[in-house]
């Protein structure tokens, strides 16, 4: 019963998705491909910094390394990072629900999930700012600090851009820019936000678990 209702819902969504003129359908596919390529290029950017970090990490006998002053650097605060990670992953889940609500033409639920996503995104940024304030390393003091601030800073910048992007999407969705069948901007926003979440999975593992 539940599976058949899910299938029926999927079919209705797919029917609406395909009920657009040929020109829009074609440009939508092209834009989607272009956006996927943007994400791939972003992936290459992060990969190059991650490989630089791994190279630096493997070029010293011990990690965390000895700082310029001669003292042993501490590990990062894992406990706080677990909470901050959950905040970001939670925002990914709420974004998924927002997209699903839009597809089902449930605008009040869409608005609620979008606001939750934006709030959680801002929460993650606040957590990151708190960690920067309390972490006992500096950008210039060691390769560990340089790698940490470069990679997490770059990720944080992506989250900040994502939060602004989500705010724009929220405004657009509530001002008639998207319809039940034409909502490519929301699809792109959802993919971008999931991508930012997934990059954090890699950074969380590299800096806090490895």
């Amino acid at each position, binding site marked *: 019963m539940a599976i058949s209702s899910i299938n029926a819902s999927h079919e209705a969504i797919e029917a609406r998705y395909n009920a657009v003129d040929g020109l829009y359908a074609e440009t939508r596919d092209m834009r989607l491909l272009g956006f996927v390529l943007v994400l791939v290029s972003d992936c290459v950017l992060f990969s190059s910094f991650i490989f630089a970090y791994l190279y630096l990490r493997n070029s010293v006998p011990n990690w965390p390394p000895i700082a310029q002053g001669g003292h042993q650097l501490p590990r990062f605060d894992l406990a706080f990072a677990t909470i901050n990670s959950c905040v970001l992953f939670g925002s990914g889940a709420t974004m998924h629900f927002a997209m699903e609500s839009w597809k089902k033409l449930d605008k009040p639920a869409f608005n609620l999930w979008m606001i939750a996503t934006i709030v959680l995104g801002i929460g993650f940024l606040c957590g990151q700012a708190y960690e920067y304030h309390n972490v006992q390393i500096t950008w210039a003091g060691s390769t560990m600090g340089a790698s940490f601030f470069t990679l997490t800073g770059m990720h944080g910048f992506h989250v900040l851009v994502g939060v602004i992007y989500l705010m724009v999407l929220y405004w657009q969705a509530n001002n008639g820019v998207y319809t039940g069948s034409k909502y490519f901007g929301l699809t792109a926003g959802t993919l971008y936000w999931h991508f930012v*979440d997934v990059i954090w999975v890699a950074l969380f593992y590299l800096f806090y678990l490895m």
Partner: protein
Amino acid sequence: MTTAVLEKSIAFVFAILVGGTTSTQLARDWNSTGLDNQLTKVLLGLMAFGCLLVLLACVGVFGNG
């Protein structure tokens, strides 16, 4: 109870919640087609993996911070 234990306990509960939700959504959307849906499924799967990493970190399997 130290702050670290409290933080990990909270993260543990949230990781189960978020990971469970993500996995459920992934299973629900498993048969959907199209490039955007396929990519979403990959990203949801990786997010669920992230929640698993958080869970393992909370119980002390990974990390020693």
